[in-house]
């Protein structure tokens, strides 16, 4: 137990140091340019794979492709319009919208996402309630919570939610 607490303490110090190092690191990001490009690429890829993904059997007034094609066209036209606006801004030497992304915030979001993925993987392997307990404890540790009462509350809540779904709503959770 003592050695476990010491490991936790060491880990805490390491996390604090890494956090301190990353705290002021920022990356410039141009959402007004990246956004339309993302949607343009998405729409073009969807267009390209359409023949293999949406089979059309008959020549009728409308087919299974009619509506998706219309939507992809809207996305392409919209994205191009947004991009043209940005290009005009560049040509006129007007400043583009810049967002400063904090590296630490994004890494934290990535860690939360990894924890969520791990939770989803563990759910069918060890069961809903045990995986929920592990996840909630890990999440409190992520938030650097030291109060034992919080851990007890969260463990109790995880158990209650599991039991509500299983017995009150009749859902057969893993």
């Amino acid at each position, binding site marked *: 137990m003592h050695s476990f607490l010491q490991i936790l303490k060491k880990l805490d110090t390491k996390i604090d140091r890494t956090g301190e190092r990353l705290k002021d690191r920022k990356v410039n990001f141009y959402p007004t340019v990246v956004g339309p490009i993302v949607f343009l690429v998405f729409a073009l890829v969807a267009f390209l794979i359409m023949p293999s*993904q949406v089979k059309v*059997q008959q020549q009728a007034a409308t087919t299974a492709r009619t*509506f998706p094609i219309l*939507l992809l066209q809207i*996305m392409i036209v919209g994205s191009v319009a947004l991009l043209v606006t940005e290009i005009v801004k560049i040509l006129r030497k007007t400043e583009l919208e810049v967002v400063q992304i904090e590296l630490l915030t994004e890494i934290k979001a990535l860690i939360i996402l990894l924890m969520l993925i791990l939770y989803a993987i563990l759910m069918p392997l060890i069961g809903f309630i045990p995986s929920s307990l592990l996840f909630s404890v890990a999440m409190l540790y992520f938030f650097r919570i030291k109060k034992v009462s919080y851990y007890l509350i969260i463990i109790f809540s995880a158990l209650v939610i599991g039991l509500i779904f299983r017995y009150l709503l009749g859902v057969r*959770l893993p």
Partner: protein
Amino acid sequence: MDLFIQGFQQFFTLSSFIYINIGLILGLIFGAIPGLTVILCIVLFLPFTYTMGAIDSFMFLLGIYCAGGYGGSISAILINTPGTPHATATMADGYALTKKGESRKALNIALQASTFGGIFSAFTLLFFAPQVAKFAQKMGTPEYFLVCLFGLTVIAGVSGDSLIKGMISGAFGLFISTIGLDPMTGSTRYIFKNINLYSGFDLIICLIGLFALSEVLGKSQKSNQNTISSLDEVKSESGKISKMEYKRMALPSLMSAIIGVIIGIIPGTGASMASFVSYDRARQMSKHKEEFGKGSVEGIAAAETANNAVTGATLIPLLTMGIPGDGAVAIMLGALMINGLTPGPNLFAKHGVTMYAIMIGLIFVNIFMFLQGKALTKYFARVVSVPVSILTPIIVIFCFAGAFSVNASMFDVGVTLVFAVIAYLFKKLNFSTIPVLLGLVLGAITEENFRRSLILSDGSWKIFVQSPIAIAFLVVIALTIVIIGVNHIKDSKRSI
């Protein structure tokens, strides 16, 4: 009249009252805690409505929706942080009263004004919805497609900083809704030979990812702790409102109720706009303009009346034509569909009794909101200090259990994670997720009416300009686009 009586009988059951009250408690809690939203609450508890009937599930969701409106004012008044965006107008005067040691009075005004606004709105719904429904029944498939298009355009225009971005988001949501089997031809669309995708994405699974799990990812940039409120201070005050104060609040409240209803009927406008417009109107009308922002009872009454007056009014286009006025109501539309009630002009004709039961229920939702607020506000004051660090894992557990429970499938849990990442990226790219939600909700009916219209006309687009109603809708859509465009240009010039 028969429908009214039958509707009342269907509504007046013990289960309705129980679900109303559970919904109200949840709505008050989620509304009161800054960082938690009414949409999040509705999404989290939507899986619970699976086992309920249409009326019970709608009562439960309306309880959350209405109480969320009032709940937001609790934290706005006590800790100067609005629990919901539309409580922002209440904040200045509410918190000013708290600083004077009159927080209980501010909470009482907010509760009474919210109840008045809610009941006014519920009666408006009860009287106007059947009339609008009669008109809506005259619409055919082309007109109904244009109605969907109108709803999507408005939401796309007002949900973000750009109409084009909103249209792209809306088209993305509609596109996602096309994945799976095409209901008209039976062809598969974008399923990548995955059997789980045959029936497309379940609406609730997408919503959990887009609006609940994405909030959790967003917690990486928010503080973990809310400010602690002073519960003892709230308990010790009498909170009495004087006759003079009631007199001062009467006219602004009535005006705000009317403004809230008018704004609520227009899709895409919402409670925030209603509360700010009403607040401004009340300030202009007041003989005590100098008090606004410094603890004006009229200011609190106006803002709170208006944001709850929106609740019933938003249901008018929803129940009569299937156009949801805002994100929360769009999710409720999903609840209707789960219960086999297809939104659209025929909803009143086919399910008139259920519609009347829901509309009558809304009046009771507001009455119970008042009773709960009166009895429990002093305890809810403590809720605003619940740390987000405790709530976050609970939200995730709810999300995973809810997502799994829809089809008892781990694939769905994976889908929620994918949608959470999509919503996170949307936020980073400054694209709103509300049009995506509307696209997902309206996707199937929009496509069905669009294609049926084209089949009727043998592929000719002229069908969309052939009837007076269709032309009227096209004009309204064009006007909406122009107004939204002009407003965006004005806003961007102002910001320069």
